C-alpha cells in the first residue's frame, strides 16, 4: 500500500515532519541576536558553565569508552555469565527517570551509603555531592547505557570469524581487535558515542540532585531562566546546542555513509 503513495506526497510528509522538528531551532535562532549573546556572556558566569560541561562530559565519555567498550564487546560475543541480566542492569538507568537516578546516586557518592562514606573519606571536597566528580558520575549514569547498548550492537555486527582469522594469521587478540574489530565496528561505535555525548552534555535530572554545583550548561540554563527569564536562558541554550550537536551530527552522517558502503559490499 505504501508503494502506491505518490512521490510528491512522500516528499510533502517528510518536509512537514522536518519542519515541525526543526521549527524550535529556527525560533531559537530568530530570538537570539549576536548582541544578546555577547551581553549574556559578558556577565557572570560567562563561559564557565560551557567549560564545566565540556570537561565533565569529556571525562564521562572517556570513562564510558574505557569501561563500556570491553563490557559491550563481551556482551556481543556472549562471553559473560547471565548476559541478559547484565543487559538488564545496563538498561535500568535508561528506563528510570533521571531525577530518581540522582536520588539513588546520593547513596553512591553521598554520605548515606557505604561507597559514599569511603570515597568521601579520601577527600570530601573532591568526591562528595555537589562536586565536579559528582557531575561526572551523574552524566556517566545518564549517558553510559546509550553508548554500551550501541557499542554492543556495533560489535555484534562484526563476524567473530574475522577476528579468529586475524589471530590465525599471527595477531595477538588485542591487535586483532584493534586492526579488525574496531575499524569494522567504528560506525556503530561513533553513533553510540555521539548519542552518549549529547546525553552527557544535556544531563539535567540526576545532575540537579547530586551536582548542582559546579553548574554546567543545563543547570545554568535552568537558573538563568528562573532568575532572568527566557532571553538570558536562550543564550546558554544556544551554547549547549553548538557544543553538543555538531559531533553527533558528524558521527551520524559518517556512520550512515559507512553503513551504506558496507551494505553495498554485502549485496555484491
Amino acid at each position, binding site marked *: 500500500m505504501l508503494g502506491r503513495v505518490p512521490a510528491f506526497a512522500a516528499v510533502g510528509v517528510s518536509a512537514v515532519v522536518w519542519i515541525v522538528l526543526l521549527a524550535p531551532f529556527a525560533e531559537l535562532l530568530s530570538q537570539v541576536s549576536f548582541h544578546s549573546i555577547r551581553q549574556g556572556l559578558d556577565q557572570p558566569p560567562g563561559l564557565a558553565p560551557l567549560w564545566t560541561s565540556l570537561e565533565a562530559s569529556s571525562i564521562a565519555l572517556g570513562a564510558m569508552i574505557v569501561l563500556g567498550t570491553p563490557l559491550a564487546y563481551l556482551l556481543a560475543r556472549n562471553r559473560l555469565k547471565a548476559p541478559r541480566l547484565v543487559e538488564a542492569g545496563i538498561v535500568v538507568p535508561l528506563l528510570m527517570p533521571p531525577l530518581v537516578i540522582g536520588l539513588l546516586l546520593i547513596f553512591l557518592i553521598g554520605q548515606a551509603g557505604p561507597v559514599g562514606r569511603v570515597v568521601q573519606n579520601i577527600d570530601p571536597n573532591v568526591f562528595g555531592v555537589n562536586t565536579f566528580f559528582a557531575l561526572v558520575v551523574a552524566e556517566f549514569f545518564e549517558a553510559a547505557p546509550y553508548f554500551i547498548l550501541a557499542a554492543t550492537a556495533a560489535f555484534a555486527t562484526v563476524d567473530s*570469524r574475522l577476528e579468529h582469522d*586475524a589471530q*590465525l*594469521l*599471527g595477531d595477538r587478540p588485542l591487535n586483532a581487535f584493534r586492526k*579488525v574489530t574496531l575499524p569494522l565496528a567504528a560506525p556503530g561505535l561513533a553513533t553510540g558515542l555521539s548519542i552518549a555525548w549529547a546525553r552527557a552534555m544535556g544531563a539535567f535530572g540526576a545532575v540537579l540532585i547530586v551536582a548542582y554545583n559546579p553548574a554546567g550548561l543545563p543547570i545554568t540554563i535552568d537558573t538563568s531562566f528562573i532568575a532572568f527569564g527566557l532571553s538570558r536562558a536562550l543564550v546558554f541554550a544556544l551554547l549547549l546546542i553548538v557544543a553538543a550537536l555538531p559531533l553527533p551530527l558528524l558521527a551520524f552522517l559518517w556512520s550512515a555513509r559507512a553503513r551504506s558502503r558496507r551494505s553495498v*559490499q554485502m549485496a555484491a
Partner: protein
Amino acid sequence: MSVAEGTRVPGPESAGVPGSECAARAGIARTGQPATGPTLLEGDFVVTRRSFDVMAQISLAPGQRLSLFGTSGAGKTTILEAIAGTVTPRRGEVRLDGRLVNAAPGSWRSRRRGATPAGRREQPVAMRHRGIAVVRQPTSVFPHLSVRKNVAYGLGHARDVAAVLGVVGLDDVQEAMPEMLSGGQRQRVCLARALARPFRALLLDEPFSAIDVSSRSELRDVIIDAVRRQDAVALLVTHDLTEAQAFGHQIAVVDRGRLVQIADADLLVRQPATTRVASLCGYTSFLDCSADRKWALHPDRFIEGDHPDRGIVLSGTVASVQAFGSGFACDIIGAAVSSSADVVTGSPRTRIPVHVDSPPEVGIEWVVTAVDPPLVSRVTGAEEQEG
C-alpha cells in the same frame, strides 16, 4: 559411547572387498590412510551443536589431504572449526605437530595428557602460533582492507604479496577494496592470504564455491603444490563429490555429525559402506536382491539404454529363476555394454541377481534397471537401517 571407545564393525572389506575402509556401527570412522611418517594432525573430539553432536577422529600424516564430504549442515565446517580451535569441543582434543591446539575445558583426557612435568595442565597453543591457515567463505576477507593489505596481513612485510597474488590471478586488482571484487575474486584473496604464510595445516571451507569451474583445477593444483612443498596437511570441506575426489587422498563422508566412512576417493564411490553413503555418493535407485543385500545404480557410470524413461537401463538375458519371498530372484546375463570415456562396465557376461514380482521366462531378453556387481553398493540389513 565415547569417541575413544568407538566400536568398529567389519565393512565391505570383510565381505571380500580389499582395501576398503569400514564404517563404525557407532557412526565413527577414522582416517585409514597408512601413515608412512609420524602423525602431524591428530584430532579426537566431540562438539555439541544444537541439533546433534559432531564426533570425529582424524589422524593425518605430513603431506596428506583429506576431503570432508557431505550435505549442507552435516557438521563438516564444525569439524574444521574444531581443528582450527575456533570452536571448543565438549570432549577430546586436537593436536598439530604434537602441540595441543584445542581441548575440552576440564576434560579428563586433557588433564591426563596435558599434565606437564610441573603438574600443571597444558594449555592450547595461542592461535597465532598454531600454524593453521584457514580459507572460509567469501565473507572472511577483511572488508576494510585492500586486496594487498588483506594478503599482507600478519606478514609484517609485503615482499611476497605480489607473487602470491599473481599465482591466484589477482595481480591486477592489488589496490582494490573488497567491495569492488566479485565473490570469486574475494575467495581468491582469502586463498592468497592463507598461502602467503607458512602453515602446517591448511583448512579449506568450500574454497571454490564462487570460482568458475575452469579455474578450479588450476587453483586446486596451487593448493596441492603448497601443501606438498610445506609437508603440511590439508582438509577440504565440500559438498561436491567430484571436488572431494580431485583434492583428497581420502574422502571422509560426514553425515549428521558422524564420519560415517573414510576411504580412498575411488573406492568410496565403488564401495560405499551404507545405503546412506551410497545415496550421498550419487546412487539413486536401490533394489532388493535378497533379505540382507541391496543393489544400487549410479547414474554417472552407465550408458543409457533404450528406455530412458525408466532411468538408466541395461539389457540382459535371464539365466535362471528361483522363488524368493513373495517374488522371484533371477540371474541375468548382461548383454554387451560398450565402454567409453568415464563409463565403467563390467564383463558383458556378468551375472546380475534381480528380485522380480513375476517369474520371467528363462532365455528371453529382459530389461533390468540393475548394474554389474563391482559398481554397486552391497549393504547388509543392519547397516542399511543405521544409514
